[in-house]
């Protein structure tokens, strides 16, 4: 269980004089859900872009399954089994679930004709694997008919079909209601149960606290905290910590309020 899927060591990224990341260490083990928290501008999106190979770090080391990888790129990232699921723009909403899952890698027989039955079979298997079972929706259902949480499920199923070992969920619950968030959590737990890993990025600390096995708090381009599930008692602890980090002197009133809530 404790195989290390990916490890970032002392990753720095600067845009000119400005440091977006100033030496970040981050690792994800197999079958682990890592919650990445941080305010706007903390460097979350830069970190995602580095993981997915879109952006190259200025310095630092990237290890895939313990081995250092040189020349990190989008192709290397895919080869390592890293897939990023963006909240919007990921799906073609007028198409069926099947067409979205096999987008760009259609199952074909001779001369590009689709293996329709094989695709449906495979799609059903993937949907079951992440726990997306329904009497209402079939692989033929149009994605536009699905709710926000279910659409996340389709995107996650597609990532799994692409042999993803580590799925990066970029703010998967930000625009979702409580029941929809519960669906996404359900999918995430199923993915973890199948031995894959998830990097869960979120604004809502309560959401991240509920789902993650380990928390990484990013602040102004540096890791401010890495803590296991057992080390943090409640979401309020995390919130307090983040407030302390953001305002080391403490903001009168703000802090007290948080303690009362805890």
């Amino acid at each position, binding site marked *: 269980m404790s195989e290390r899927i990916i490890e970032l060591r002392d990753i720095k990224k600067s845009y000119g004089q400005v440091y977006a990341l100033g030496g970040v260490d981050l690792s994800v083990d197999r079958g682990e859900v890592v919650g990445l928290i941080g305010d706007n501008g903390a460097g979350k999106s830069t970190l995602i872009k580095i993981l997915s190979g879109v952006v190259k770090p200025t310095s630092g080391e990237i290890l895939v399954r313990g081995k250092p990888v040189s020349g990190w790129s989008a192709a290397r990232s895919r080869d390592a089994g890293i897939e990023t699921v963006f909240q919007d723009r990921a799906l*073609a909403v007028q198409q069926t679930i099947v067409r979205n899952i096999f*987008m*760009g890698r259609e199952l074909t027989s001779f001369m*590009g004709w689709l293996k329709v039955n094989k695709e449906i079979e495979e799609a*059903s298997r993937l949907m079951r694997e992440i726990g997306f079972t329904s009497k209402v929706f079939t692989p033929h259902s149009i994605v*536009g008919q699905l709710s926000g949480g279910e659409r996340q499920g389709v995107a996650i199923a597609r990532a799994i079909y692409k042999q993803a070992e580590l799925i990066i969920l970029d703010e998967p619950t930000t625009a979702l209601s409580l029941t929809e968030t*519960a669906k996404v*959590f359900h999918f995430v737990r199923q993915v973890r149960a199948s031995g894959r890993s998830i990097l869960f990025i979120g604004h809502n600390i309560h959401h991240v606290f509920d789902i993650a096995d380990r928390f990484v708090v990013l602040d102004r381009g540096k890791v401010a905290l890495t803590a296991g599930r057992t080390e943090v008692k409640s979401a309020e602890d995390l919130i307090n910590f983040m407030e302390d980090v953001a305002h080391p002197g403490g903001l009168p009133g703000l802090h007290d309020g948080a303690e009362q809530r805890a």
Partner: protein
Amino acid sequence: MSKAMEPDLQTPLGRASGQVAKKPAKEWSHPSNHWLRGFVIDNRASLGTLAVFIVMMAVFIIANPTVFTTWYLYSSVLTTLPVALFVVVPLVFVVTCGEIDLSFPATMGFASWVFALVVQAGYDPFLGIAAALLTGTLLGFLVGSLVVYGGLSSLIATLGMNFLLRGLIQIINEGKSTALTGLADSSAYKIFSSQVWGIPVQIFWAIAFVVFSALLYNRHRFGAQVKVVGDNPDSARQMGIDVKWVRVKVFVFVGIGAAIAGTFSVMINFTWWPTAGDGYLLPVLASVFVGGTPTWGGIGTVVGGAIGAVTVSFIQTGVVAAGLSGFYVQFFNGLIIILSLLGHKWNQARYR
């Protein structure tokens, strides 16, 4: 809709994937248990078009029952309809891809001109057909590349190409037509333009083309990628689809279709005119949208487009045959287009 799916939140966290996968496959079922209802839901756009056609024909037949029992009326429609079908169907692909192509009339004229030149020079018409297809492919590629790699608006760029190519034809031919008298004796004519049991043979080729294209649209990687690119190009790009090349390919497809259509129209008349194809621009475009392919891209229907073409080509014949004067044709054309669009708008939800 969303309430219908209740995930089992009590699922044990440690459950292995192997166990989950063993669940019976019965959990998926079609929205309707009855296959007919599913069929209607999946094909509502083309069925709606079919309904429009049937109602329209019923009105015409009631107006003048005797004329519609004569075979000549249908025979004349079946001769000219195939020419339209060969361009309507590729245009469904273009519109699904989120583009438009207004250059096909000139491509029809240009490709059939090449065909006429080859036949006039004394070569076998089959060679002429091959040359016309090659011309259509190249012109489609040219137009597509201009739009896609040039980053131009397809509406304006293809309109410009239509004028440009047509102008080129007019400049070189100075308005003169080409008569192809030897064509009637050729084997190509027998295969592509004669009659079988009194039915114009073109319609069989056109039906084969429609069926092949419908399969291409629904059961082929090409059709799947065309739809995805028209639906969400960003997503398609992210998933590794060569979005630009898919877009070029739909224009190439129109070029090929236009070449076939142009060649067929020349074979019907034994004459090539420098204006060949010009009259098809508006009826063909109308057919695509009457057929139920929406303007916004991502979805469409090949069979619906074909039925739309049948509807549009029966309007003129039907209006005159029903005893109304020719002045009514345009009015009925417009009426059918507007009614169809209203019907499709009610019929098809647009998902975002």
